[in-house]
């Protein structure tokens, strides 16, 4: 079994100082009523007007949301917009969050929608979350080559990052998003289905296609016969 990310509901590490809003111009801390590691409590406090509680949620998830935005849009400015919009919209609409899912799942849903909107603006006719046509799974057996034990070690870290960015960027967004949520962010099939508003069967089917397509795209870099 492959586990990529540790759970986002993992142990809360309190900041060294008091909770505070970090800005370039206003270093004064805001008091928080939250002392326990509990996302639901942070959300309740934020709903009641505790800005520092919301700030703590932001501190907890900002890196993940930025990374998700980068991975979906493949563009730093778009990723920044996605992150800002996701947090500002979640703050503005916090009253509408009913707690049916984790706050993080709700936040990711907003971020994914923002990111897909960015892609649609860039390529209006190419980004759809409609069910794709059935794939040609037989093509899997056209390129079968051994990669050896640690194929990624053939490349320096920077070069490897470029390869991974390039192949994930070539993937159709419909598959890219599912792969990122399930395999990179470690979000469950059920939650991925909720986020994308599709069935769990569709998540599984798209994940299979995404994994096989990425495997195929990486083959030319990682096959044993490829000499560097």
């Amino acid at each position: 079994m492959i586990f990529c990310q540790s759970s986002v509901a993992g142990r809360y590490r309190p900041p060294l100082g008091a909770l505070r809003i970090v800005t370039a111009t206003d270093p004064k801390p805001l008091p928080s009523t939250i002392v326990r590691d509990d996302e639901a409590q942070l959300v309740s406090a934020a709903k009641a007007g505790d800005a520092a509680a919301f700030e703590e949620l932001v501190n907890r998830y900002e890196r993940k949301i930025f990374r998700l935005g980068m991975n979906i849009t493949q563009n730093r400015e778009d990723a920044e917009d996605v992150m800002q919009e996701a947090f500002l919209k979640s703050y503005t609409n916090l009253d509408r969050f009913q707690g049916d899912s984790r706050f993080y799942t709700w936040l990711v849903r907003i971020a994914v929608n923002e990111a897909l909107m960015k892609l649609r603006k860039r390529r209006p006719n190419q980004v759809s979350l409609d069910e794709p046509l059935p794939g040609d799974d037989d093509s899997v057996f056209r390129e079968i080559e051994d990669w050896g034990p640690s194929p990624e070690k053939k490349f320096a870290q920077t070069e490897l990052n470029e390869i991974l960015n390039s192949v994930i960027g070539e993937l159709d967004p419909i598959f890219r998003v599912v792969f990122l949520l399930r395999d990179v962010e470690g979000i469950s099939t059920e939650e991925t289905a909720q986020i994308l508003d599709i069935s769990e069967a569709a998540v599984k089917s798209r994940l299979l296609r995404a994994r096989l397509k990425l495997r195929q795209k990486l083959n030319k870099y990682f096959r044993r016969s490829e000499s560097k």
Partner: protein
Amino acid sequence: MNCKKVILELTSYLDGALDSSVRLELEQHLSQCTDCRMVVDTTRKTIQIFCNSEPVPLPEDVRKRLHTALLDRFRRNAKTI
């Protein structure tokens, strides 16, 4: 189990979500089929390579702009309450 069925079950197999009887059938096929074994191995490595890749860092200037925007929203919100 044949090669096509292995591919259909690949995601569930890699996620450890297969019933034990199906998993045994699949593993029996893998022990005899080099092609399927390589597909399973390279797909598993694909996931691991992405998992182990360097996380995208959040640049400090991007983080500061986010927190400034939030602070502004908090202040506007406080004024309307």
